[in-house]
């Protein structure tokens, strides 16, 4: 298993797309943090960039990569190795290289230009989002036979989490605004890793006050350490769930 992880990882860090991804992230973070003396604002912009690009790029790149390496996977499966090991090794290799790209691209400039708790939160939520959306890509890979369909599913899934989910949540909030729905909203929010990451990050910045403005529960609950643990465990849940599912499906899959 280690050998496979190593092979995938080494293959990927030489990959041009990953390199370009790293360079673009680095350029964005340096320019955003360098231009503005107000680091809080720079972090906010970086957060928006991360929340928009990291999920889409992770899931698309991972899906394409998995489908492209299908022959390699089939070759490996001809060897006496367990199916789930092959799959997990592929995932670990891919997810670690994408996370490394994120950490180099965003993390290093942040450590140099804006060290602090908020920066740490941005990097850790970014890495978690990378892990989550690579994990979704894995699920898509095992569910679909066809590459085009897989890519389509990846696009739909990422769009669902970036926009559609929030839209539905907004509709929900609007239609039930007469009821005390704060708890419910927090519950629903847990089903979208991007929203969780956004709220976690916002609560580390001073704009958090806006979220607690009308005595809303979000800041009181999610801003507390229990809330942070809650959010992080849900994010981890979103890494593990698609992975487990894909392992289950892959075990019985007719290749």
């Amino acid at each position, binding site marked *: 298993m280690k050998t496979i992880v190593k092979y995938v990882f080494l293959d990927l860090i030489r990959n041009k797309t990953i390199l370009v991804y790293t360079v673009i992230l680095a350029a964005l973070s340096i320019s955003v943090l360098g231009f503005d003396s107000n680091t809080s604002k720079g972090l906010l912009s970086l957060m928006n960039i991360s*929340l928009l690009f990291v999920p889409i790029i992770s899931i698309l790149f991972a899906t394409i990569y998995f489908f492209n390496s299908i022959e390699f996977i089939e070759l490996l499966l001809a060897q006496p190795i367990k199916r789930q090991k092959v799959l997990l090794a592929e995932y670990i290799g891919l997810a670690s290289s994408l996370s490394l790209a994120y950490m180099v691209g965003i993390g290093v400039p942040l450590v140099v230009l804006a060290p602090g708790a908020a920066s740490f939160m941005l990097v850790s939520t970014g890495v978690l989002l990378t892990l989550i959306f690579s994990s979704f890509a894995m699920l898509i890979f095992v569910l679909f036979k066809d590459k085009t369909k897989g890519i389509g599913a990846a696009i739909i899934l990422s769009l669902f989490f970036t926009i559609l989910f929030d839209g539905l949540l*907004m509709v929900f*909030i609007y239609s039930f605004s007469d009821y005390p729905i704060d708890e419910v909203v927090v519950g629903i929010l847990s089903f979208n890793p991007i929203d969780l990451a956004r709220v976690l990050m*916002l609560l580390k910045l001073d704009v958090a*006050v*806006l979220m607690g*403005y009308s005595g*809303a529960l979000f800041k009181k609950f999610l801003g507390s350490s229990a809330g942070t643990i809650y959010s992080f465990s849900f994010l981890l849940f979103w890494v593990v769930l698609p992975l487990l599912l894909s392992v289950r499906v892959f075990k019985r899959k007719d290749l």
Partner: protein
Amino acid sequence: MPITGTKILFAFTALFLSCVCMGKTIRVRPGNNAIKSAIASATHGDTIIISEGTYYEHDVHVTKKLFIAGEGNVVVDGQRKSEIFVLVANGTVLQGLTIQNTGISSMQDMAAVRIQNAQYVTVRNNKILDNTYGVYVQNGSNCLVKDNIIRSGAVSEQNSGNGVHVWRGEHLRIEGNRIAGHRDGIYLEFVINSTIHRNISEKNLRYGLHFMFSHDDIYSKNVFTRNGSGVAVMFSNRVTMTGNVFKNNWGDAAYGLLLKEITDGTIEGNLFERNTVGVYMEGATRIHTSKNTFQNNGWAMRIQASSSNGSFTENNFISNSFDVATNGTMVMNVFKNNYWDKYDGYDLDKDMIGDIPYYPVSLYAVVTEKVPTAMILYRSFLTDILDKVEKVMPSIIPDQLKDDNPVMKKLRL
């Protein structure tokens, strides 16, 4: 004519006499009830010089016109028993003392210095520390409270008092004081024709400055930072607010300036920086807001629809999360010639004024005003898109609330 002449002659005589008949000077050294006995032995117009040392006295009633001054480090300590100085004579001056530790009572407002039914009283250059109330003016006129340091460590609104508290007064001047850690920094109730100038009011539990039923007052060049809320002006008419700084009033319900049921005010040349809400207006009529800078606030302004006939001209709005929020669609205020950093219109005729109007109320601001829970979607991609769409085709936002002549460049104020 002859009457006037007599009056002038009389006035000159009085002035002459007052110069000649300078009262005697009494020196006070530390001792049991030293200040009280000095006051008892003094007569109208005397000077009392208090020498360096600590005096444990309370309920010192100054019933004659005296000039009381501290020499060196004079501490008058009330030992948390009762009030300390009560000034009831016109023209009394109290200066250069450290006055500390009044009692705390829920029955009586305990003040370090109370001015009671008196005129022309001066309280200056004192350090007024750890008291329930600092300076308490109760029905005074033409009094001066100047350059005092008024500090306390209030923890709850119930058990604390105000730094400078005025209940009924006119022609007062409150200048150059530094006030911190009280309930309200300065509290004015039924105060007219007074000026509040160059004070620094910070870290107070409730408001930096609080007006109730106070008319025709001016406050200028004060600094209000880190208070529960900066300034509250309520039920008052014709209050002028110029050149003040409202800063870092940041919290779950913190305002830079809160206006409620006021008419004919002027807000000019102030700086609102990093407040949760820069200006909040409710039932504010004919308020003219111009040449202010709103910077890094959560909401620069929240204008409730009950406010009318106001004007907002030549203000700078820079990096506020929301520029303007309102709770209705009716707009009875005018916005003109402001600089909005979020304005993305164009200026083809190069007259430095944007060719298309700016709508300061974003869709998301409207939504969160109606449904505060929607704040959970703050900074999400969805709300950005909605705002952009709404800017192009306003349908939900109050389309009458707009600046038809937004300036292209930041105004120099």
